[in-house]
């Protein structure tokens, strides 16, 4: 036990928790005002649902004693035997603190997905989907990467969850966008974000919280945490500028939402490599991420699937780039427990990163599709067109966002 590490991890855990309300704001500002509450509620509800799942069986399935590389055992169900002494994943902090930290990751992942089906999902469908997806997709993938499962044995690197969180949610979001179909009026009506100040605030809180996410993934207040902190910031700044410049060049104006989106793209892209790459690597990762995710979002417009808040373009594409980039820029000069990437003479890492990413995409897409079909059969996915027109705040929750 080390009080400095405990101190840091307690705060890092709180920071990651704050990301989910931050996401609620980030997403809430982008929908039309008639859907602001339903959108925000879905993030908050994830805080509720996933926490209970985590205590009951989630932590155990994700991090419990490995069963064939695929899933953890139920030995720690109900957090049985998980106490205040150090656990197997970290020697200097209480096991329960590791549980808390990891929980916050499990919460935000399904919350990210809600951006794709925003403005048309039934609340019960969201609930059921979240429970099933968390159980059948998040927990196994988390186990594979961090819980001693097959991916971790491979030697893939995922410092803070590029694969587990972003690629995973992005892949699920793509399937969901296709299954849900377009919002009424898509491509015809103007879907202006209703409150971009709220979105900027959300982006600010996400950036702030992400320091806990990435630096906290060192599980200690040490040099690696410092490196992750700084690379996170640099990549984010670079991606912010990159998106801004890209849209300035292509569409003629730099936008506020572009800056916020670029920042998130940078945060996503640096996540897997934060503790493995140096400042230069981080800057390149960010610069590419900003432009790449912008192009991905433009492409969506062309392809015509309605991923309402661009989970695919930002988290899917940004996460994939980040995973691959880790295979390029990782260096043991930064982190002796890491690996060297392609640019440091080890092309193998790149291949492993790609394989892990695409396997996760494949699994996530198939599993998500099945889950959505089941949810549709049980409670129905989409509200009626009439309710969609009136707005989900009123029809699903009997509330309205603003009475100014």
């Amino acid at each position, binding site marked *: 036990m080390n009080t400095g590490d405990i101190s840091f991890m307690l705060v890092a855990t709180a920071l990651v928790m704050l990301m989910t309300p931050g996401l609620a704001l980030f997403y809430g500002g982008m929908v039309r005002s008639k859907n602001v509450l339903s959108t925000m509620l879905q993030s908050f509800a994830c805080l509720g649902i996933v926490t209970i799942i985590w205590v009951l069986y989630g932590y155990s399935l994700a991090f419990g004693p490995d069963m064939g590389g695929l899933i953890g055992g139920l030995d720690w169900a109900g957090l049985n035997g998980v106490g205040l002494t150090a656990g197997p994943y970290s020697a200097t902090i209480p096991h329960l603190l590791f549980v808390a930290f990891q929980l916050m990751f499990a919460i935000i992942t399904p919350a990210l997905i809600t951006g794709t089906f925003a403005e048309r999902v039934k609340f019960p469908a969201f609930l059921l989907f979240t429970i099933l997806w968390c159980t059948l997709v998040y927990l196994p993938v988390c186990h594979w990467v961090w819980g001693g499962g097959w991916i971790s044995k491979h030697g893939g690197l995922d410092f803070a969850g590029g694969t587990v969180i972003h690629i995973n949610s992005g892949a699920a979001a793509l399937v969901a966008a296709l299954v849900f179909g377009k919002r009424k*009026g898509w491509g*015809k*009506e103007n879907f202006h974000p209703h409150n971009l100040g709220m979105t900027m605030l959300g982006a600010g809180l996400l950036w702030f919280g992400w320091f806990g996410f990435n630096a906290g993934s060192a599980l200690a207040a040490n040099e690696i945490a410092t490196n992750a902190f700084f690379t996170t910031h640099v990549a984010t700044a670079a991606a912010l500028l990159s998106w801004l410049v890209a849209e300035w060049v292509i569409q003629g104006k730099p936008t506020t939402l572009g800056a916020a989106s670029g920042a998130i793209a940078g945060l996503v892209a640096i996540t897997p490599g934060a503790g493995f790459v140096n400042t230069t690597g981080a800057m390149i990762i960010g610069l590419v991420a900003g432009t790449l995710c912008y192009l991905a979002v433009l492409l969506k417009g062309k392809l015509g699937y309605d991923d309402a808040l661009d989970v695919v373009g930002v988290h899917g594409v940004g996460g994939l780039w980040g995973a691959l980039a880790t295979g390029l820029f990782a260096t043991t000069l930064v982190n002796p427990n890491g690996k060297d990437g392609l640019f440091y003479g080890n092309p193998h890492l790149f291949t492993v990163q790609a394989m892990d990413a695409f396997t996760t995409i494949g699994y996530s897409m198939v599993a998500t599709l099945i889950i959505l079909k089941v949810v549709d059969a049980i409670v129905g996915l989409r509200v009626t067109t009439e309710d969609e*027109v009136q707005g989900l705040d*009123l029809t699903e929750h*009997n*509330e*309205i966002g603003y009475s100014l």
Partner: protein
Amino acid sequence: MKKIEAIIKPFKLDDVKEALNAIGIKGMTISEVKGYGRQKGHKEIYRGAEYVVDFIPKVKLEIIVESSQVNAVVDTIRQAANTGKIGDGKIFVLPVEEVIRVRTGETGTEAI
């Protein structure tokens, strides 16, 4: 000249605007209003307190047209704004005595 006021459902605005455009109406003024009528309002719940809200968001169109166009415009709005459900709204026709364009000072038909 006449003034046509139409109270319609907000989500029908684009359709109505396009339909009017198609018959050559290129100017109008709209505003957000709230309507009270046969259409039932909605219920809101905040910490258990239930409030019934009778006033329903509507859009009001105000269009000045030559008298000869009144019928065409009314019919066009009627069709474009119609959903067949209660609350589709109403159209009122009022007399107008004079119209002036601020920029040029033109009056009458010229000013529309």
